[in-house]
């Protein structure tokens, strides 16, 4: 049990710098966003199908970012972020089909739904720590899954259908945004890119705010944070709710794009895959998990045709966890800091591991 918790201990794997994203890091991120902005129209012409993949990459990057803010940065091991993702998605689906497809209305509501769901789950869960917190969030998310799958809201309200049960809600129209045709995929791509970039900027700011510093302190030493005068529980719930808002936004972007809200979006496997993205990308860095999400989605697309692509993903995952416990972000940071010794470092990592497995110290 202790080993399981230790594996997810952000202190072990995160990049323990005192500030998220240095000025050069910001420049790199900005460059990447500009590159994606240019890439979009090119992809739309050359290989339109890949634009669809890119939107998916962006949505899951946003979701991984929202999770990392609590999981990696604040040390709250949420295994239930699918709940906020799905809740945001379902609220968007219902609003679009029943009320209005106006993005300026629906997306904020999707966010607020994520905040509300996260606040409830957080309020009940933050008293427990580590693996117990993880199990509680997982259980809550599964309750949401079952509620959507069995269409409990419809049963409670005595109407025929709300969540659409195991069929989900389908045939959802795309957003309307004053004067912009979002049924054109490239425009949807730009909207998503813009919102992901703004979310990243906001969460990086939040991570470096007085509030964010307290969250980081809670990750490092929860007890001491309380004994220097912070209400730990309140900080955790607020942090969790903010994270849930961005998960809800991701859901709100995903559902109209897929034209579908399905219970599967709430399933624990979504939360599990998210954690894989975090570990691959390097948790606690905020940008690393976004790379992790992109890698997983793109690998899945390229290798998904092979019958057992999960085995390949699993293999990559094992290699990263063993040899690069700080994930892709850790690899990139060490390459930047120490480019000349990259080969030596890699060799050392392998030698260390072999020594560990053989049990000689």
């Amino acid at each position, binding site marked *: 049990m202790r080993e399981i918790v230790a594996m997810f201990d952000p202190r072990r794997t995160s990049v323990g710098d005192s500030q998220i994203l240095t000025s050069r890091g910001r420049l790199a991120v900005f460059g990447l966003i500009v590159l994606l902005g240019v890439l979009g129209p090119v992809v739309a012409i050359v290989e339109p199908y890949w634009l669809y993949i890119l939107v998916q990459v962006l949505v899951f990057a946003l979701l991984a970012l929202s999770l990392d803010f609590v999981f990696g940065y604040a040390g709250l091991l949420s295994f239930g972020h699918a709940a906020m993702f799905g809740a945001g998605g379902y609220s968007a689906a219902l609003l679009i089909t029943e009320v209005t497809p106006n993005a300026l209305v629906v997306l904020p509501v999707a966010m607020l739904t994520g905040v509300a769901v996260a606040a409830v789950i957080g309020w009940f869960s933050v008293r427990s720590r580590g693996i117990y917190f993880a199990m509680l969030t997982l259980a809550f998310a599964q309750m949401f899954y079952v509620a959507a799958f069995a269409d409990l809201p419809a049963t409670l309200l005595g109407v025929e259908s709300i969540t659409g049960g195991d069929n989900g809600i389908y045939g959802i129209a795309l957003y309307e945004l004053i004067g912009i045709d979002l049924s054109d995929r490239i425009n949807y791509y730009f909207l998503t890119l813009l919102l992901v970039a703004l979310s990243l900027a906001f969460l990086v700011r939040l991570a470096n705010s*007085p509030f964010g510093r307290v969250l980081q302190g809670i990750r*490092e030493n929860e007890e001491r944070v*309380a004994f*220097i*005068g912070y*209400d730990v529980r309140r900080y955790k719930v607020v942090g969790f709710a903010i994270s849930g808002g961005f998960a809800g936004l991701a859901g709100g972007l995903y559902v109209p794009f897929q034209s579908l809200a399905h219970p599967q979006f709430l399933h624990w496997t979504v939360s599990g895959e998210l954690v894989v993205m975090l570990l691959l990308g390097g948790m606690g860095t905020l940008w690393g998990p976004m790379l992790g999400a992109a890698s997983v989605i793109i690998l899945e697309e390229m290798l998904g045709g092979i019958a057992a692509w999960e085995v390949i993903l699993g293999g990559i995952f094992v290699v990263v966890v063993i040899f690069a416990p700080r994930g892709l972000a850790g690899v990139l940071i060490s390459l930047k800091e120490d480019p000349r010794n990259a080969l030596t470092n890699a060799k050392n990592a392998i030698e260390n591991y072999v020594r560990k497995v053989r049990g000689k110290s």
Partner: protein
Amino acid sequence: MNRTKPETPDSETTDETLLRTDDVTKKFGQLTAINDVSMSIPEGEITSIIGPNGAGKTTLFNLFTGKYEPTSGQIRFRDERIDGMAPHDIVDKGVVRSFQITNFFDDLTTRENVRLATQAQYSGFGASDFLRHYTSLDGAVDDAEAVLERVHLLDVADRQASNLSYGQRRHLEIGIALAAGPDLLLMDEPTAGMSPEETLDTVELIEEIASDTTLVLIEHDMDIVMDISEFIVVMNEGELIARGDPAEIRTDDRVQRAYLGGE
């Protein structure tokens, strides 16, 4: 077990009493860790709590700071009940502790360890606490510098806390508690494990802090206790067995029997 209780526990609140306990008992299941303790901590002085291992000294600190709630009895700080309050609310009142085992943020720099503690007095849940950069919270930054200077850690402020020497780590432990802005500072074995030189240095620091803060020490080094304390409380097996100034304690029979071993 025919120990006699100290005659007439004098726990009436006087003008100078900062913290007092009335008949405080703490049980863990069958074990009585603190048994019916009434005491008062005078303001502006150095009080030491002494006693053999397992006497309940650290448990008292845990009760004062809200880690535990007393099974019965009351704890008052400036005449306000603080038993049952959450730890962070008690810190807000002005009661702060440092830990026996160094207990801070290893991965952060020395400066950030202290700044995080000073920040508690400047930030909360207002909009700007979410949106501004933490280094632009000038009050917290300035206070942190002052504390770092006071505990002689300015030179190593940018070093990661886990890379400090043992003596420096102990000073940082005190610095973080100081940074939380205490009126009453509870120090759990501040000199434990230190070399004679480091000890001397720390005693100097303690006396300097005492110039504007009321201190309660848990301390095993009798020379230090007798030297710097104005008031001493002796605990044994969860009970308060004696109190008084160093001269009184030195000659107290019960203390001799229970603790000093007839030195």
